[in-house]
């Protein structure tokens, strides 16, 4: 008989854990929904503002964003490098002009 009671207790504990699990699941689901909503918004912004292509799928958006970021970064780097060189060229040219003037 005592063995039965023990099992009943175990079952009750099991039930309690089941309840908690249910609650957690619901919270997770709510959170996930929130994330999903936020994700949707971000994707829409990305499509509209950054990619200018509303027909892309979500996965394509991520890929396109990666590509865009890479492109901009590369372009910035190239431009900076280019203008760095241009500034030096201008500097050298001015120096040359001034040198000629002093003659």
């Amino acid at each position, binding site marked *: 008989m005592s*063995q*039965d009671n023990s*099992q*009943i207790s175990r*079952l*009750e504990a*099991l*039930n309690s854990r*089941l*309840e908690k*699990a*249910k609650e957690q*699941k619901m919270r*997770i*689901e709510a959170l*996930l929904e929130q*994330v*999903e909503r*936020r*994700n949707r918004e*971000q*994707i829409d*912004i*990305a499509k509209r503002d*950054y990619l200018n292509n509303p027909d892309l799928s979500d996965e394509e*958006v*991520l890929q396109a*964003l*990666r590509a*865009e*970021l890479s492109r*901009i*970064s*590369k372009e*910035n*780097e190239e*431009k*900076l490098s280019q*203008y*760095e060189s*241009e*500034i*030096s*060229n*201008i*500097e050298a*040219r*001015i120096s040359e*002009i*001034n040198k*000629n*003037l002093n003659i």
Partner: protein
Amino acid sequence: MFNPENNMELLKNKHFQNGKDIQKAKAQREFLVERESTIISNILKAKQRLEMKDIIKEQLDILQNKTQEKSIGLFTKLLTNMVHDVMPKNKEQEVHFNLSTKRGKPNLDIMMKVGNNEYEDVNSGRGGSLTNVISTGLRYVTLSRTKNRRFMLLDEPDCWLEDAAVPRFARVVSDISRKVGIQTIAISHKNPEFYNSRMIELYRDNSGTVKARVIQETKEDEYIDTDEYEEINRTSLMEDVGIKRIKIQNYMSLNDIDIELSPTMNMIVGENDIGKSAFFSAIRSFVENDCNEGMIQHGKDMFTIEMEIEDGIVLKLDHKRKGQKKTTYQMIMPDGETISEDNGRDVPDFIADALAIRSIDGINIQLAHQKAPVFMIGPDITSSKRAELLSLGRESDYIQRMINIYNKEVKEDSLVLKNGQKELEEIRVKIESLEPIFNLEKRYLEVDKFINSFFERKHFQDRISKTLDELEKNSEILKNKKASNELRVPSKIDIDPNSFYRVNEIIKLGTGIRDNLSSINKIKTIRDIPIPQKITINTSIDERKKLIEEIEETQTRVKNGKDKYKDSVKLLENISSEQESFIKEIGGVCPLCQNQIKHEHNNGENNE
């Protein structure tokens, strides 16, 4: 990730410096362009001026000659007219000025032209009459060329004149005084009636004091030659030219003199030794600060001389017999206030400036002394000094300065032409070398645009990067959604205590079955009980003992096995019926694993 911001400050500084340098270069270019324009303009002007060089020089020379001729012409005409008026027998002669230049300075010799190209020195072999006339005339001419006060003091200017000429001389002097606008005070031992003047008599009153009084006024209607002046204006014009009033006290024989002077001609008359010369001496003492104790009247401590000039201002000189500061000059305003005072040895500036009767290079034009009637024509004055006193070289000098300035300008213009072309070429080279600055400025502005947009672009990049990070993270999170959907939390388990009791019973039952089956299996092993070996003669005692023990044990085990077997079969029959009914009761499904309960009979063995 590309992060150029660190380089950006350095670049910006460099870029900023480029901007400054470009602006500097542009300003320099602008200056050079302006300079180029100025040089071109200067060259053009210089060229134009140089083209006119010969004409201008010629015109300046002509102007120089004409100016000299004009000045000399005026003076010689005046002096010649005086000579002709006073000495009509000399009508054929003319006063001639011989103006020349020695060592860059004008020189003047005054001659009498006695015939065609025949000149005589004005002083040599000529009578005193001519000397009197020309000297007096020259005084008026010379004074008219200065800025001194229009005041002349003539002490016996007619001393050498023959009596017949005196009336004509007196008339000429009176006329000149009016026409030239010079107040004149004269003393003459000839008949003063000849002079048309205010006649002031020095006289001794009943107490023996020497005083002064006007005994005759100027006869205005006696001036006939009025072509050049209008009477009404002449009087008003001359009001301020000279000295209005002279007061002398205790100076030599003059006890108390107070004379209001005419702005034109004044004659001082009086009996011999009354003090006419003392009157002149008093004026000279005042003008030259030439004072001594001997000038103070006997029995008096000091003498005083006052001269009233324009605006009621009085200039005063006191000379005391005793004291540290014997001489005192004062300037007294109409209200009696003394505004300046001086006790120095020289004539103070405030007196010299107000009175304006100054010597020029040591020669007093205005105070003609009786003992020195020759003026300007004596050997004591050099030709250059004569020209200087008459300012004859003045206009000539101005024009010469103009010529010098022009020559300098011509020289400068030639230099402008020479150097300007050279500078122009240099400037043009510089301007050309500065031309690329405009292109550089365009490039600079492009860089400027980039720098200005850089942070905007960087911000855009950061936003994309952030969005991408978030999306990637979300994507990972959202993968869990699938798992979450698949996750099924079992529903609550209902608890029936009876079922647990039954289960326990069954478990017990099962356990009993398992145990029995185990026993049965063990019984089955009876078959495997080894049969001890047969005892033979050769078997040793010990082995025989061991074998006997084994046989005995085997007999026991067999007996026990038989008993257990009987019990088990009986129990098994009971369990089998129980099992059958329970399985039926639970519907043939295991309550733990939910599988179909199967049972099989295999040689009396029952497995669960």
